[in-house]
């Protein structure tokens, strides 16, 4: 057993209102620089929708992630038997998304509003490309271009998660009374088996042993761009101005000091939970090779129970600090993903073993049930359990997105969430009946204590309950020299200060 610690973020999708506060706080902190304007290390997508970059989930197009071939695991990007095929594409990558798949970064010519000469018409601020500096004829794509366009045939119907639905079922998605959509907030998954790391010819990308954060060494990156192609989530971004790839850094300067990430801290809906997990690094390959229908289960197995005394002893032997062990024992990530089994990874079938988890939303199901029953459906009733099995379309969609197509995993979570609602409603309103509420709870495998805890964490969770982030022992660090911290203040993002020499900035 090789125990390692991992920081993990969980998202309660029902509570996400799509306000993009997370994206904006991330942008303000990390990517408001030249070459990074188009990057959204944290972004929120409307689902069903095409996503950012367009149709990123379609790995026939981008060939990100891993595949099992002949019993061994290999990057989908390789297409051939060995790494040499990857290097052969170093000069031109057939699967690299270009800036047009994200959007051309732009600003507006605001000065014209002040400086335009007097005339008959209102002056306008024309859009201007931030790459070329030229005026743009028309903005064709932008951040959150398909925001709230859930039923749109232009965007929603291109969602790769709709696979496995018949044409008539897809058609139903655009019917107004059946239309549903919800939000998918995304950051880098800081995977256990990251494809970006595995594809980097320079060896610039690495996973940190102590907290599992995946980072790009900016000094070693040589702009071969393989990470952008290989990551199925398209979370490494290419900085076109500096010629370096950049990605979500899980706000490690904040988490190292015990503060939550900028996105999680800013979240107005309090949908995010951050905590530590212990996992067995020896089993990563086996988990990544597991067939689709058992993938989520295998991922739950690789996460170890931090309250098990043997695990704690192994963790101590592996050099994990006491504060990390304590944090893992109170980890919301562990509870949501493994103990209560209501959270699940995003697209586990990409086989990178992602470490962010999502609680699937009840709202599309309830909305659909209401539509089926002429608008009179009371969601918080035991009727729900009869109805849910009929909701093929949203269940299929959620399963494609969150459990590699295994509908049982999604159903289990949805039923548990509803059982908690019923239990709490009986406690607060008392119109269901005590024995009925308890039997619903036990039928989905939860104890009353579990229900109280789930309710507490997901509805009332305080800052300290939602974010259990152990501090990193910076005194042991060898990667950051505290003596240079002051010098690095004011430098452009990461990397060093730009220097002018021989007529160019270096």
């Amino acid at each position: 057993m090789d125990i390692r610690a991992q920081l993990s973020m969980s998202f309660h999708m029902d509570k996400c209102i799509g306000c993009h506060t997370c994206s904006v706080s991330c942008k303000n902190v990390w990517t408001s620089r030249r070459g990074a304007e188009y990057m959204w290390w944290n972004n929120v997508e409307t689902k069903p929708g095409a996503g950012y970059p367009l149709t990123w989930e379609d790995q026939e197009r981008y060939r990100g992630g891993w595949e099992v071939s002949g019993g061994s695991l290999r990057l989908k990007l390789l297409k051939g038997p060995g790494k040499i095929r990857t290097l052969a594409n170093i000069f031109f990558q057939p699967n690299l998304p270009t800036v047009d798949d994200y959007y051309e970064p732009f600003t507006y010519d605001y000065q014209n509003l002040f400086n335009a000469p007097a005339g008959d018409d209102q002056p306008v601020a024309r859009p201007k490309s931030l790459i070329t500096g030229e005026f743009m004829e028309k903005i064709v794509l932008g951040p959150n271009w398909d925001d709230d366009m859930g039923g749109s045939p232009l965007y929603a119907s291109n969602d790769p998660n709709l696979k496995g639905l018949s044409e008539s079922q897809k058609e139903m998605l655009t019917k107004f009374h059946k239309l549903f959509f919800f939000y998918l907030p995304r950051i880098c998954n800081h995977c256990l088996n990251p494809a970006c790391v595995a594809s980097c010819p320079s060896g610039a990308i690495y996973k940190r042993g102590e907290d599992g954060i995946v980072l790009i060494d900016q000094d070693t990156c040589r702009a071969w761009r393989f990470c952008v192609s290989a990551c199925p989530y398209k979370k490494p971004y290419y900085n076109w101005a500096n010629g370096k790839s950049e990605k979500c850094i899980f706000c490690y300067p904040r988490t190292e000091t015990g503060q939550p990430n900028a996105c999680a801290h800013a979240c107005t809906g309090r949908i995010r939970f951050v905590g530590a997990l212990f996992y067995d690094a020896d089993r990563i390959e086996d988990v990544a090779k597991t067939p689709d229908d058992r993938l989520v289960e295998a991922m739950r197995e690789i996460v170890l129970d931090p309250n098990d005394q043997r695990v704690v002893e192994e963790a101590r032997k592996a050099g994990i600090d006491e504060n990390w062990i304590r944090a893992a024992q109170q980890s919301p990530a562990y509870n949501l993903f493994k103990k209560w089994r209501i959270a699940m990874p995003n697209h586990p079938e990409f086989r990178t073993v992602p470490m962010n988890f999502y609680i699937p939303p009840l709202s599309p199901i309830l909305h659909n049930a209401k539509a089926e029953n002429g608008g009179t459906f009371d969601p918080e009733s035991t009727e729900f359990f009869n109805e849910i099995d009929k909701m093929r379309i949203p269940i299929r969609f959620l399963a494609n997105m969150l459990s590699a197509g295994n509908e049982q995993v999604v159903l289990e979570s949805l039923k548990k969430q509803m059982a908690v609602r019923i239990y709490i409603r009986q406690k607060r309103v008392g119109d269901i009946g005590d024995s009925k509420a308890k039997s619903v709870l036990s039928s989905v495998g939860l104890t009353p204590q579990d229900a109280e805890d789930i309710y507490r964490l997901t509805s009332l969770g305080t800052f300290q309950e939602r974010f259990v982030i152990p501090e990193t022992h910076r005194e042991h660090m060898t990667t950051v020299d505290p003596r240079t911290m002051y010098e690095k203040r004011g430098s452009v993002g990461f990397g060093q200060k730009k220097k002018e020499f021989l007529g160019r900035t270096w």
Partner: protein
Amino acid sequence: MDKVLFGAMPYVLIFTAIVGAIWRYRGNKYTWSSQSSQFLENKTLFFGSFPWHYGIITILLGHIFGIFFPSAILAWNGVPVRLYILELTALSFGFLALFGLLALIYRRLTNSRVKALTSSWDVLILIVLLIQVVTGVLNATMYRWGSNWYAGAAVPWIWSILKLNPNVDYVASLPLITKVHIFNALIFIGFIPFSRLAHFVVLNPYKYLVRPYQVVRWYKRTPQTENIVQYK
């Protein structure tokens, strides 16, 4: 004149390259990048980058092979058919590189996004590379048989430079185009550390073939180790 160009300048430019590379590697590693622009434009790039790189790398490896094994080349060329095969192969790779380079220059001139990112160093190295490839192709077509007298005249001169005993006589009688080709190659070497050309001296990609997929860095375990998930 020859003494300055082919006796002294090689040392000046090679020295510049070495000192420049050390200076940039130590002082500003962050800028060491291939500065790929595929992200901004990838349709013309396909017709430029692939032929250019595969053409020029083959030619370059041929030149390097010649430096170390000139007698092998001369022996190979002893039979006319083999000489024709070598010359024709080399020439076709030369044309491949030329085609790619022209496509890349065209792309840089016409695509507004790529143009906006073009620095004066980029222009400079494109000019140097164009001169190099054009004079190389001209050499091959006008003065036959290039592979023979490369092994016979240029290689001894290169060795005389490397042995710190420059003998300009080897190259003094070569035609003008060949001299331009040689001197331009020296300029090219001098430019390497200061421009995006730096990307081809990095040895990292070759390591990729032998390392395991996953890289884990620890900051606490001392001495600092690269602890790796063991599978390939």
